């Protein structure tokens, strides 16, 4: 039963990495995000292959259940990703505003010329 579980987690982790590599190969995702997810995926593979590692680590930290430790890690990481994406979105929004302003200013002379025609 336990072996089947191990096999399942390894397959999921490897599939995760494979999907990201393929997206990277097709240039569908910016390299920085591909790098992030591939590193995370590899971390997942390591944890899936070396399960005692997780238990030892959580034991060291005083966490009884290795699984809870894994959930904690996942939660923290997802929070980190959300914050990082918020920053990216904020930056993009600001740039879009600047671009719209620039275009409006560039368009002003032609608009005027068309109006007075």
């Amino acid at each position, binding site marked *: 039963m336990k072996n089947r579980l191990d096999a399942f987690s390894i397959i999921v982790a490897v599939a995760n990495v494979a999907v990201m*590599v393929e997206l*990277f*190969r*097709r*240039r569908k995702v910016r*390299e*920085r995000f*591909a*790098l992030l997810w*591939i590193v995370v995926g590899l971390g997942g593979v390591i944890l899936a292959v070396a399960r005692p590692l997780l238990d030892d680590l959580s034991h060291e930290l005083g966490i009884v259940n290795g699984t809870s430790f894994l959930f904690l890690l996942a939660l923290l990481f997802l929070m980190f990703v959300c914050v990082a994406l918020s920053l990216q979105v904020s930056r993009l929004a600001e*740039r879009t505003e*600047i*671009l719209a302003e*620039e275009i409006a200013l560039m368009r002003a002379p032609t608009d005027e010329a068309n109006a007075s025609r």
Partner: protein
Amino acid sequence: MTVPRLLVLIPCLNEEEAVGAVIQRATAVLDATVLVIDDGSTDGTARVARENGAEVVRLPFNLGVGAAIRTGLRYAWQNGYDHVIQIDGDGQHDADEARKLLAAVTAGDVDLVVGSRFGSSYRVGRLRRLCMRYLARVTTKRLRTPITDATSGFRAFGPRAVALFSRSYPSDYLSDTVEALLLAADAGLRVVEVPTLMHPRQGGVPSANAWRSAFHLARLMLVISLHRFRRPLTPRSPDR
């Protein structure tokens, strides 16, 4: 035969102290139009550049060196310049040395010339040297021509290189130099490296920060190792 039209391309970020002298040197030594790409500077870079007789293209916000170069190469292509020399705005690159690069491209058997900083006493830290050696080895292998300074931003582009890179050019930090060499090799461009003399920078601050460099080096290693399996960059439609 027509005289090749030459554009000197200077990507700049906050270089008001140094860029004036760089433009003056370039116009004194080369028969060329000087184009400054102001990559979202917050100082008087654009004004100083204009006062010194350069054409100026201002980007609305900082996009990074790669995007600035891409902008400049598109400008070159749209305006019929068939040769481009890329020079740093901080005065590190010598205009006399630029003639060496240009000579190699106008001779007609090379499409892209890289000016190596190791021609002079270019000193770098040990870690940085190690990284540069690694990148040099990779690019030498792929290009089948000796490259010692893959990240040098002192370059000359011939007509084929201008045509290719005006349509697609990698914009991330380090990719604009190293990945561009791999793309040149893919497109069958002939690349050669020439040793050049360098000056210490005349002003401004270096843009690299240790963490950022480490991150981009990791990203670059991913790019290099999977490069041959990747789809080619989607080119824009030709503007001309």
